[in-house]
């Protein structure tokens, strides 16, 4: 399987506004608007999904993930990037391109 596009730490992921979703009994489910598939997210993916509001950067979400699950920052960032790439490949998320200034800081 080809590796997903790496997600920049400075990217601000945003849920696809056409997707429908809910958290029910602690489990996040998302319906993809493209193909009507109902996705059930695992706890990590669900956590990342809920914070992908277009306001936080990937790095900031990874930091929240590290705090929540008590993992080290490097692992949290790698997990966050992988998960975001996977959700974006399913068109559930948009990876907002950061501005030039943000890229240089990222």
């Amino acid at each position, binding site marked *: 399987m080809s590796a997903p596009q790496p997600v920049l730490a400075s990217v601000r992921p945003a849920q696809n*506004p*056409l*997707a*429908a*979703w*809910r*958290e*029910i*009994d602690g*489990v996040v*489910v998302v*319906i993809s*608007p493209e193909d*009507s*598939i*109902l*996705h*059930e997210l695992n706890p990590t993916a669900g956590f990342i999904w809920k914070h992908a509001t277009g306001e936080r950067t990937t790095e900031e979400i990874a930091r929240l993930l590290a705090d929540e699950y008590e993992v080290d920052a490097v692992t949290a960032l790698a997990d966050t990037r992988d998960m975001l790439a996977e959700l974006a490949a399913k068109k559930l998320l948009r990876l907002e391109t950061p501005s030039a200034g943000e890229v240089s800081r990222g």
Partner: protein
Amino acid sequence: MASAAVMDRLVARSLAGNAPLNVHFDVTYRCNERCVHCYLDHADHGEMTTAEIKRVLAELADAGTLFLTFSGGEIFLRPDFFELLACARKLRFDVTLKTNALLITEERAAELRRLGVRRIQISLYSADAAIHDAITKVPGSFARTLEALCFCHTQGLLVKISCPLMKQNIAVWREVQALADSLGVTFIMDPTISPMMDGDRSTLRMRLAPSELLPVMQAPVFDSPAPAPAKDDAADMAAAFDNIPCSAGHNSLYISPYGDVYPCVQLPLPTGNLREKSFAEIWYGSAQMRRVRNVKESDLAICNDCAIRQHCQRCPGLAFMEDGDLGGPSQRACELAEAAARIAGVRDPVSGLRALGRLHATSNSHPAQLVHIAALSTPQEREAL
């Protein structure tokens, strides 16, 4: 992950925790058609305002509703309907619309798509304009509905033709199905004909007797086997529905244009009004909602001794409408169960009411359970999210 298995688990979780996963919301009873079989009082007796509905939608989203069906009456008669839709989509509901589509233009169909409406169910009574228009009592309605249906389909909305079955069109349902097939949209039949809201039972004259429904029940559209869920998911689902009659009041509910909350559109037991109480107060706190939740399959006195129970799709709403007993059998369920048993090869099937000598040859009750036969009739239906 297969969508059906995920759906099974979602339903199981929502039932276990009484999350209000499915909401059927009638936003108006007004209509621009006057269908011969319609049970609604089309006058506006004080519909909820835009602000009131938006508040209710926010409460539903908080409580965990995912699947939201806007229905009526004719939903597009509300001038604020697109505002309500935009609000619902902003709250990330999965929205389905039920409409006669008369007011859907090409631009409006595009707007529905832009807002992220996924599914639309459109009523069509016949593939013959004369029959359809005679039922709706609106000349030209067939052509307009069909044109709007095509606008929606072209936009990529998942379109389903709903064909309410009655005496006027029982002979032509196959042509409606053929039309749906030729258009590439899904199809569902609905034999529900109810008395009118004011108690007028004249609409029941159009309702089909079990003997008339038998050929329909035998048609392949009713026969397609359900896709088998994965073993564990099947177990989850079976456990979730174990001992409860149906989803009404457990993970599903109905809201009227006036803010009244019911366990199901076909279970007219008022549980509270959203102008007086919050949704959470009604859903979690109402004694009537608890009454519905307390009905256990194992407590159904007559049905538990019924020889043909496996052929029956008893509807608590139907039982309640017939004699106020949520846990009782019903004339219509017994009649239809006997018909279904005959199809399955049972000779001289005897339902619980017949065994007690209480089964009358009547079709004046409410055939709600056949909706469920219909709802399970196509793979698309069963996989519908």
